[in-house]
């Protein structure tokens, strides 16, 4: 599947792109700290056994806890989770990076997989 330049959102704004800034890091530090910890097997095990207690211990807000319960990957990134951290939560509950991508695109997983990659031919000089 190829996208014509006019189909591509060039804004670098949500929901096309979620640039992670220092300001976002400051606001969403607890969420990112919680998500990064999924790199460790012990954290994955504790979360599997008692998710609510682990989320509480990491100081997640009620909104963030709800997004984790709903496996709302897009919402978690929109709330300030860096996608490299959020995919660690997804992996721990058996969802691949492609599942996270499908969630972000609002697409069916199989359909997205078949359509990838999305080739773009836009060049810097094409930008107005």
């Amino acid at each position: 599947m190829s996208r014509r330049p006019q189909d591509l959102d060039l804004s670098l704004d949500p929901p096309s792109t979620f640039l992670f800034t220092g300001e976002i890091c400051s606001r969403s530090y607890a969420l990112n700290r919680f998500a990064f910890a999924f790199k460790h097997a012990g954290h994955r095990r504790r979360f599997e056994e008692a998710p609510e207690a682990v989320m509480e211990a990491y100081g997640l807000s009620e909104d963030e806890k709800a997004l984790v319960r709903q496996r709302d990957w897009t919402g978690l990134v929109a709330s300030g989770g860096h996608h490299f951290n959020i995919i660690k939560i997804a992996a721990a509950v058996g969802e691949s990076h492609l599942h996270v991508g499908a969630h972000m695109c609002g697409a069916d997983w199989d359909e997205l997989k078949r359509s990838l990659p999305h080739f773009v031919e836009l060049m810097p000089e094409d930008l107005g």
Partner: protein
Amino acid sequence: MSALVGGIGIAHTPSMGYQYDKGQTGEWDPAWRRWYDGTRPVRDWLAAKAPTHLVVIYNDHMNYFDLSTYPTFAIGMSAHFPQADEGYGLRPYPGIDGDPDFAWPVARSLVAAGFDLTFCQELELDHGIYSWLPYLFEPPWPVRILPIAVNMLMQPLPTPERLRQLGAALRAAILSHGRDERVVVIGTGGMSHQIHGTRFGMTNERFDRRFLDWIESRLDDLMAIPPETIMQVAGSEAVELSMWYAMRAALADGAKAAYRFHTTPAVTGCGVIALEEP
């Protein structure tokens, strides 16, 4: 005095690593087999150059550094660099050795040149290095490594100009080194890709091919493209390409491409260039 025997720019992506491992069990995905075949000449070129040390400018992906302390430039000073567990377990490779006695004079020289680096004694390396490493070398790794990790994840990122300066400072550090070593500088990142947001899965071969073309002798023209523009046309994670500027600036102005290759096996543009000193 150490010799700078060449430079390599190369893409990295987790699937590059996993697909190599699958290939080793006889199950090459044809798209990734093309990348494997396309990188064989670089492997041969490196074998002929016989480097003793690699200086690698790369980025971690929340696999070693967490956000509690996020260095803009960090340098690994230890005698050994294990793989970082990215949450899926370790791949079947040994860690790679460092060389503190080589690394410290380089670090001193970089600090004297204005780079206030974070010194790491327990750095673990993620797919930013381990994804392409087995394509270019076979274990036991015949080289030692000096990794320099650059913040490519949290804005503000270091500027392209700062990366060019890092490369120039590295060149001076290597050429003035008290030991007689053979050094290859590697810049790794990108190429075109975006792996989040509704632009998930976008890639731009046309842009990547221009980048591979211009990195040889049109560095100023490449660096004149604002990072935001690269993110717009080649995907937000393509901003990692600025680490190739450091590699290029570490080589002489007249360095020439010995080899280039590009393919898009999945969602990340995979390109490589090998540059020869004049």
